[in-house]
């Protein structure tokens, strides 16, 4: 059982949670993730650790409600608890003084990129951050990102906030201006990451992306998260999740992420029609937490 200490919506369907998980908080480095399961009948899903507080023993996760499990998670609040949280998993981001680093976050990818931006800044880099979203209501973590960036560019598809355009347009214009860029980190929807890779490829700017394949265990045991990088099979959960963008087979990642689309759609529809059963189960878990004698569980 992992108690939720705080929760708040950052935008319409993106929610931030601070979760009690002292061992994970102590170990976690930027770029790593956890796997969570909400209740006994739930699935295991990976979520990036956005932040941690060692003294308090908490980790922060930021969740976009897109499928059944993430929607259900976003129904939980402070005082509730998550059944299983395991981590920190994956390799940490490579952080050192590269010089000038461009960090690009698309949608909820901003939350995933943010901790690495902080680490890059601390390592002495000049950090340029480009944040993109479809519209102003989907922009998240603006203040936090601003505080850690030397330059910040906000881009919305519809121009409802910041500049109108895609993150790649901004990146391209920085390159065209002749700015020296030593390292790029791009995290967001697959098409965005792929587009960034194509912008930096001709200029041979080292570019890293964080991949989000489907996972089960997150410890290298199932191989479901295998991605193809430079023609080689890699397990994103243990070898990644960050890889060289110029080597990644994005088309295959898109394919593999579609494997369960129909089933995912059905589950989501069922949940939206009648979420009571799942909610009850998620809350039943808290009963156990509040009354430990009701069932043995370990934190």
């Amino acid at each position, binding site marked *: 059982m992992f108690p939720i200490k705080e929760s708040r919506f950052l935008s319409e369907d993106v929610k931030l949670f601070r979760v009690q998980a002292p061992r994970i908080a102590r170990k976690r480095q930027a770029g790593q993730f956890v796997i969570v399961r909400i209740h006994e009948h739930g699935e295991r899903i990976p979520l990036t650790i956005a932040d941690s507080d060692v003294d308090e023993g908490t980790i922060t996760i930021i969740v976009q409600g897109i499928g059944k499990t993430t929607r259900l998670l976003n129904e939980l609040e402070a005082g509730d608890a998550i059944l299983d949280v395991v981590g920190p998993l994956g390799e940490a981001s490579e952080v050192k003084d590269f010089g000038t680093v461009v960090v690009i976050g698309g949608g909820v990818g901003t939350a995933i990129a943010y901790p690495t931006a902080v680490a890059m800044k601390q390592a002495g880099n000049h950090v340029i951050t480009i944040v993109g979203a479809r519209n102003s209501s989907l922009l998240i973590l603006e203040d936090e990102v601003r505080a850690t960036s030397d330059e910040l560019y906000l881009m919305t598809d519809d121009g409802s906030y910041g500049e109108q355009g895609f993150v790649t347009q901004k990146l391209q214009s920085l390159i065209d201006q002749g700015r020296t860029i030593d390292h790029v980190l791009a995290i967001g929807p697959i098409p965005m990451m792929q587009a960034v890779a194509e912008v930096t490829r001709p200029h041979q700017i080292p570019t890293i992306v964080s991949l989000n394949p489907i996972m*089960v265990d997150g410890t*290298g*045991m199932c*191989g479901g998260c295998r991605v193809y990088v430079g023609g080689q099979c890699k397990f994103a959960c243990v070898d990644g999740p960050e890889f060289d963008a110029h080597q990644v087979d994005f088309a295959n990642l898109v*394919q593999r992420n579609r494997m369960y689309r129909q089933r995912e759609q059905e589950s989501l529809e069922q949940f939206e029609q009648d979420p009571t059963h799942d909610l009850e189960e998620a809350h039943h878990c808290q009963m156990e937490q509040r009354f430990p004698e009701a069932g043995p569980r370990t934190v």
Partner: protein
Amino acid sequence: MTTMVDKLPPKERTKIPRQTMPEQDACERAHNFREVNLGLDEAIAQRESQRCLTCADPKCTHGCPVGVQIREVVDLVREGEYLSAAAKLREDNVLPAVTGRVCPQENQCEGACVLARRFNSLAIGYIERFVADYERETGQVGLPERAPATGKKVAIVGSGPAGLSCAGDLALKGHGVTVFEALHEIGGVLIYGIPEFRLPKEIVRQEVDNMRAMGIDFQTNVVIGKTVTIDELFEEEGYDAVFIATGAGLPKFMNIPGEELPGVYSANEFLTRVNLMKAYDRDQYDSPIYECRDRNVAIIGGGNTAMDSVRSALRLGAKNAYIIYRRSEEEMPARGEEVHHAKDEGVQFMNLHNPLEFIGNEEGNLSGVKLIKMELGEADESGRRKPIPIEGSEFVMPIDVAVVAIGTGANPLVQSTTPDMATNKWGYIVADDETLRTNKRGVFAGGDIVSGAATVILAMGAGRTAARSMHAFLETGQW
């Protein structure tokens, strides 16, 4: 209790045929996940126990990797003393309800039984299961007495049969035992790998509950090497000794073209989705599995994992479920009973075939596999005849789902964060044969992570060996 049956003269005993295991009808069971073998009733168990010749030098015990006192157990069964039989069994084997179901008896106790030379071997696995189930179902599992607390703390990494048996023995000696497990459930392969229809999960849970009652602390969701390292277990969490039993859980792929296609699974993933995540019960559980219903599913491999996968595929509704194996049935490493059950259920065996390539359709999903026929040549290092491709025999078979079950390797998470602990060239941990000590003070290792993928009973035996030498280390402090 039953009536005691007088011992028959040896000649009469050999006239009794080996009793058969009652099982769910093959057509019916091929569509459900309930256990296939139903277990012996008392009358059948009695009749089977009559067949034992009570040898002066019981070969069966030599054939068992942990030396279960089979003759004594069978004697007690014949006398109707089932609980005493169970207690006798537990002296050497802490998971009898499991091994009675999953041991490859034909190569072990039953293979060594003298009856096997002229008649059929004694059905030792069935008797073992009967005794263990009797004890369990009558709720009379006698929890052994714990020695007074020693004040020492041990950490067990991994909760498969090696970890569980080590934990049980050390708890009895009075040590404080914590088991760390990466997954959300306790049991290792017994929970995530071996399917419900062969080993009901309830049996594993009961064993674990018994251990909880003995005071063992189980901590799920802890990945040693990630959440906590081995060094931190000693330095920050105050453990006095550690046993590493992380199994051989890293799936191997064939590295042939098309393996990246959606529809191609490792057996570990396929079985984890089915068993641990219960994907077969889609009304109740959220984890999905790629559609097998009315489709063609091919499993590559000939071991227990392959048999478990192919029989799971059938139960998920596959139209055709194939085993593709590059040698012949004789060389198959799977338990005999599993092959036999798979055939009865309608699995199609394509022995002496090897995949060359997976083929995708326009949508980019798996649609076929290119196979080549094989023939057997001379024996190789493993003593098995080497399969050789027959040139020009390639053909394409349409399939929608493929499961690669060609073996597993060592997961490096613990080893890579414990650089001062020796490993061999395949990444397995090096441990002394007798004491299971590694080269790192206070750290022991056993089960599949030392031996490579093996069996439940060998892992259990390793756990007990480790417990003995850990106890000695904790008592004396001598390394």
